[in-house]
């Protein structure tokens, strides 16, 4: 049993660098291609316009002859599962000893509830914060079939220029556990005395972590209840006070209540 749990954890960890490596390799390949093109262009005397034209030709039809997709209507939004119908289906399947179908129907009901819950929560969030307007086109409610784990609700606030705040309310025991572990480690709360890029703060009486990264801006994480957390990612904010003011515009108690957390 221990070995299986170990294998599960290692395979999970294994999948993260794999994903990152794939992205990294893709970027590396793009950089290498562009560098090679520049050298070839300079030797053959091709101008950048010529190479751009060639690139666009390549984009519409690759050298293999396989066409490249240039657009499409995408997928239509489907209604979330009907919770009552899913629960009725589950009861029927269960009474007929069809446990596989019963499980599937309960999962559908769970998904329906999570999506409704996410939408309700989005409605309760403020329309603007710190001069930033909500951008409802980027609203997201993501529910997975794995129960309460990895449910994510996201809202973006923006000034339509370069200042943006993304709030994510998520339920993930793994990450939440890691954040809570941070609070248990006194050494992690200490500054090196010079460049303190992570520190503990309180948001509406809840323990939180705020961090700053030159390329990402400010990130504020507030773990709530047993397995949920609220994350603010603030780009181009002037200072941490501005981040804290933004966070305080949200009613954390209301978020807790919606998620059924204490």
């Amino acid at each position, binding site marked *: 049993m221990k070995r299986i749990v170990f294998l599960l954890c290692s395979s999970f960890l294994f999948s993260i660098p794999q994903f990152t490596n794939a992205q990294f390799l893709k970027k590396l390949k793009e950089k290498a291609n562009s560098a090679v093109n520049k050298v070839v262009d300079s030797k053959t005397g091709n101008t950048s316009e010529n190479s751009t034209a060639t690139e666009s030709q390549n984009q519409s039809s690759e050298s293999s002859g396989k066409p490249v997709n240039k657009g499409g209507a995408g997928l239509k939004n489907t209604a979330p599962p009907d919770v009552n119908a899913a629960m009725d289906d589950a009861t029927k399947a269960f009474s007929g000893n069809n446990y596989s179908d019963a*499980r599937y129907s309960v999962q559908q009901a769970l998904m329906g509830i999570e999506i409704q819950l996410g939408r309700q929560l989005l409605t309760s969030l403020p329309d603007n914060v710190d001069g930033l307007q909500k951008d409802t086109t980027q609203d997201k409610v993501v529910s997975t079939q794995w129960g309460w784990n990895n449910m994510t609700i996201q809202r973006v606030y923006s000034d339509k220029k370069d200042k943006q705040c993304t709030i994510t309310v998520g339920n993930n025991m793994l990450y939440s556990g890691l954040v809570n572990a941070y609070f248990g480690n006194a050494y992690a709360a200490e500054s090196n005395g010079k460049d303190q890029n992570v520190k503990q703060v309180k948001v509406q009486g809840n323990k939180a972590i705020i961090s700053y990264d030159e390329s990402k801006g400010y990130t504020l994480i507030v773990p709530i209840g047993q397995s949920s957390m609220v994350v603010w990612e603030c780009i181009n904010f002037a200072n941490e006070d501005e981040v804290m003011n933004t966070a305080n515009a949200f009613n954390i108690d209301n978020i807790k209540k919606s998620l059924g957390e204490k």
Partner: protein
Amino acid sequence: MKKYSILILIPFFTIAVQAQDFSKDIAEAKASYSSGKLADAHFSLEQAIQEIDMIVGKEVLKLLPEKMNDMTATTNDDQVSANVGFVGATVHRSYGTTGSQVEIISNSPLITSLNAFLNMPFVGGMMRNSTTKVVKIQGYKSRLEKQGDNENGKPNYQLQIPFKSALITITANGMDENSVISFANSIPLDKIAALIQ
């Protein structure tokens, strides 16, 4: 006679109790949902899913062979666990006293990546070397690994059969390779798959 009747009735009684729990959970979920208490409805549905996993686990145990080679199943050690987290539902059965066992893990979001991991030869998955080989069990590609010998000089084996969203791990100590494969073939994998998928 009375004693036997009680023993026969216990499993039925257990399932009946769990069926009641499931119905209770669904009823609570419906009541909470209709009154707008979404988080409570969610909790009740999670409980219902765990009830299903427990029942399915017990049904799977019934399908497992009573014997592994000459070792009898230690049914007192039978275990079924269910959770909605990352580990998923697990079913455990021991055979004899040498640590031989069958473990089935299902409905875990990590099983897919674990199964992919097992299929990658370069990280020690489906490959052949002096201790590991790939065998087919009822059409499923599986990984058989020899894990040294026991105190009597007989080999210990571990056989991993990844299928659908589940993984079956058979630990067979003090048995030869043919007996391990023969035992694995005696497990009704398709019936188990139908139950847990």
